[in-house]
């Protein structure tokens, strides 16, 4: 079964490689490596790379970037496999060549199968080319039932859009459950540094809650503890006008309230 060779038949131009122990197109080299007919140990990657670069520079092939990409994939696999041979893993030193050849064969087989399937797919009859949809008008009273054409992707894009616009990290799938104290202190430190006016406790909590997505109660607890720590260090002062009133923070600059 030489699907690879068959598939690449319609690929022109070919990359011709000339290596010790092998001379011919790269696809052929891979096909031979697959069937154990070429010793990968003898392969000189440096020469292969040079020849590939030469191929890329060739004016005639400039427009065939897709093919160049293909060859690059093949060459990188060969290189990868060769590297496996040069630096064997501790345990299996024995039949490395066989193992690596097997690996190469498997990868090639899989890729060539997928390429075959992609070709099969796009060779199929296609909508608007080989068969056509209805264009019959419904009656005047007709109202489309499915009124919204929204995909989940639209919603997700909207979210990325906000994140990009606001330029802050809004909560993502990898939500943390708790706001750790060190993080809370770090956050307080930053906020105190950046703000020029009085900061309120609730604002701090809201900010960290919205930007991290962590439960607001946990945020409040951690921020409160963080503030106590920070106050103890003498960097800020906390004020509360009456019971249950909002806590207000004031910077302490050189021992004087800011």
């Amino acid at each position, binding site marked *: 079964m030489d699907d690879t060779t068959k598939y690449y038949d319609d690929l022109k131009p070919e990359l011709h490689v000339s290596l010790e122990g092998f001379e011919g197109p790269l696809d052929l080299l891979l096909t031979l490596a697959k069937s154990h007919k070429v010793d990968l140990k003898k392969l000189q990657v440096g020469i292969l790379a040079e020849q590939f670069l030469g191929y890329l520079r060739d004016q005639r092939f400039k427009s065939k970037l897709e093919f160049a990409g293909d060859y690059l994939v093949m060459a990188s696999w060969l290189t990868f496999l060769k590297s496996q041979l040069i630096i064997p893993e501790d345990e299996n030193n024995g039949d490395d060549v066989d193992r690596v050849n097997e690996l190469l064969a498997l990868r090639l087989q899989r890729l060539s199968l997928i390429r075959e399937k992609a070709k099969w797919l796009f060779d199929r009859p296609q909508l608007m080319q080989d068969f056509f949809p209805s*264009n*019959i008008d419904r009656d005047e*009273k007709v*109202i489309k039932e499915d*009124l919204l054409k929204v995909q989940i*992707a639209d*919603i997700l*894009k909207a979210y*990325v859009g906000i*994140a990009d616009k606001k330029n802050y990290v809004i909560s993502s799938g990898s939500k943390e459950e708790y706001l750790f104290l060190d993080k809370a202190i770090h956050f307080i430190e930053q906020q105190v540094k950046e703000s020029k006016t009085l900061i309120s406790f609730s604002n701090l909590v809201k900010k960290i809650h919205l930007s991290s997505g962590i439960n607001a109660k946990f945020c409040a607890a951690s921020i409160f503890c963080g503030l106590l720590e920070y106050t103890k260090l003498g960097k800020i002062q906390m004020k509360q006008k009456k019971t249950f009133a909002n806590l207000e923070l004031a910077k302490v600059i050189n021992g004087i309230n800011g």
Partner: protein
Amino acid sequence: MNKNDAERVIEALLFTSSEPLSINGLKKKLPHSIDIGAVIETLQKHYEKRGINLKRVGGAIVFRTAKDLHHLFITKEVTKRNLSRAARETLAIIAYHQPVTKLEIEEIRGVSVGSGTIDLLIDLDWIKFGRRKSSPGRPITFQITDKFLDYFDLSSEKDLPGVKELRDLGLSVKKLNRA
């Protein structure tokens, strides 16, 4: 081409056309030997009792749904519209931050959320009221509904990819701005 082939050709042409097709025009697509009048008559009979009827309109023919089935096409009074950008963003924020208050949504979006937007999403049954927050004023929160998950084929809100993941997938936001 026999008469049956001619029937098939006319069927397919009518099916893909929103306008009545002139009989003269159709005639040109068929060999001279075909008696188009007879073909149309056969088709008309064939479709007489079906959900779709073949109708003559002057010198043209057209497929129309059977009159007695008109009720199928009178659906609820809904207007077809795209979900506005505000609604998409609001929905996304509720999905990712639930339970979340209106104020918090506004804070994230940077603009105020019109009451129409929330109403629309509630009407769609995609969001619902959640608990009240314990913060001052005890504002009401919003969260997404099972219907939302169902509509977008998600098994839970945990299935929503994170922002980094979305960027890695290369979802482009540019298109969004058109809407």
